[in-house]
């Protein structure tokens, strides 16, 4: 069941990515929804899950966005592992902490991508620094919003479930 849930989430992110790209060319540059998904799974604190989700989602990102295949696969795997490692050692519950995790993950991903491109390509096309900073901030905000909305939705579902069982009694 978790695997099915993961695949549905991945399909939804791919769909959102294409919808965003159709609305504006700048939207995928502004926000990497795939990274939000990687960090979200990483925050569960399972190192192997972080690695595996990072790899799979990263490779899907590469397939969808084009370019040198494997760049995001590598970067997102490292980010997924790093997030899971941090989540094992830190209690990240409050919005500022969550924002920091997502923003740091985005910054780390950008750093790894730039490092790889510089290392591997003879004539690398580096991203604009302003766009990188905007992307880091946007990923942080999107991450916080997603986690908070999900938390609230789960709470509501739980309340509804309890009220339903108490009515049945």
């Amino acid at each position, binding site marked *: 069941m978790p695997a099915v849930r993961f695949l549905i989430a991945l399909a939804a992110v791919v769909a959102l990515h294409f919808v965003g790209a159709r609305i504006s060319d700048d939207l995928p540059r502004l926000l990497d929804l795939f990274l939000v998904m990687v960090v979200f799974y990483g925050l569960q604190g399972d*190192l*192997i899950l972080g*690695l*595996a989700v990072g*790899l799979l989602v990263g*490779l*899907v990102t*590469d*397939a*969808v*966005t*084009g*370019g*040198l*295949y*494997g*760049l995001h*696969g*590598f970067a997102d*795997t*490292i980010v997924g592992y790093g997030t899971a490692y941090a989540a094992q050692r830190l209690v990240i519950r409050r919005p500022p902490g969550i924002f920091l995790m997502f923003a740091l993950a985005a910054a780390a991903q950008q750093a790894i991508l730039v490092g*790889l491109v510089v290392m*591997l*390509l*003879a004539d690398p096309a580096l991203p604009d620094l302003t766009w990188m900073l905007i992307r880091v901030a946007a990923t942080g905000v999107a991450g916080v919003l997603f986690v908070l909305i999900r938390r609230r939705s789960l709470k509501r579902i739980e309340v509804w479930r309890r009220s339903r069982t108490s009515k049945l009694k």
Partner: protein
Amino acid sequence: MRDTSPLAVFASLPEERTFLRTLADVRWGVLVTAILLAAIGLATVHSASAEMEVDYLPRHALRILLGLLVCAIGFGIDYQVLTKFSVPIYIASITLLVLVLFVGRAAGGARSWLGVGSAQIQPSDVAKIAVIVLLSRYLAGINRRHLTLPQISLALAVVLVPMVLVALEPDLGGAAMLLPPVVGMLLVAGVRWRLLLAGAVVALVIGAGIWNFVMLDYQRQRVKTFVSPQSEPLGAGYQLRQSKIAVGSGQLTGRGYMQGTQSQLRFLPARHTDFIFAVLAEEWGFLGVAVVLILYALYVRNGVTVALRSRDRKAILLVVGLLSGFAFHVLYNTAMVVGLLPITGIPLPFLSYGGSFMLANFFATGVILGIDFRRYVNR
């Protein structure tokens, strides 16, 4: 004098640091040889593709880096968990093989690639691992000295399904590569000699049937070229002839890095994939080839040590399956390049350019290391 090597330092850690002590005791030679082979492969792919329109160096480098991460995943996943999910993994791999028949991308005469955007995977690489994982679980559950005929038949049926699907692509070489791991696992699990002989006879009969009714013209031509390479020096025999020239011209020390005429002047086809061994032989000569073959032997030897040290039947079978497939790939590819076996699309592990094959090999390496790491836990 006190031994200050990292392993000795780890081994001298206090008893309570069991994780680090166990980690130090893992047979890391498997990974070291894999990395060395991948590094040699990277340099050779760069040389082989230097005169091509596309530079394969960055792509190949990235795949090796990804491979190392996949190796970490293989190491991290407990093989007991892997075998627990062997049936869904097997079904998923069969689904991919069916899918490739309808929506696959054709390359080299076979529809064997699944592509999404810029990504491509070869489902037969996934199927190889899926079959090994499933059979290790099945054969480990049989508590007998010798397997019975129905048990062997069931094991063969497990591999026959993906074999038929891969053969339909049509990729007979890829289909044949599914068999060696199973044979290796069956031998370790226990097969009577008379059954082996009977199996060999049946295989010959099936082989004759495949030659007459299944193989396509170009596949038959490859075998005919193997038997008589001089018959068509500019036609079907061209590839083998160029490969032999490349290997022979390397002599003892080779022509030098990026100095091979067969690769740099584009005489040798598929030089960065299936015929990378010929490029290596031309540029580094007998000495270079010997180093690579020694590294392959060390990889297998380290793997065998892992199997011997393991106390779990499932783990032993898993390692044997992975190593059999690996060793057969190496043997077939090197023999094919020098004309000892017919030409077919079989790459050289860790050296040839190819994404899913590289990742599958690194994953297998990770699984072998993981088995060694958990040998005191899983008995």
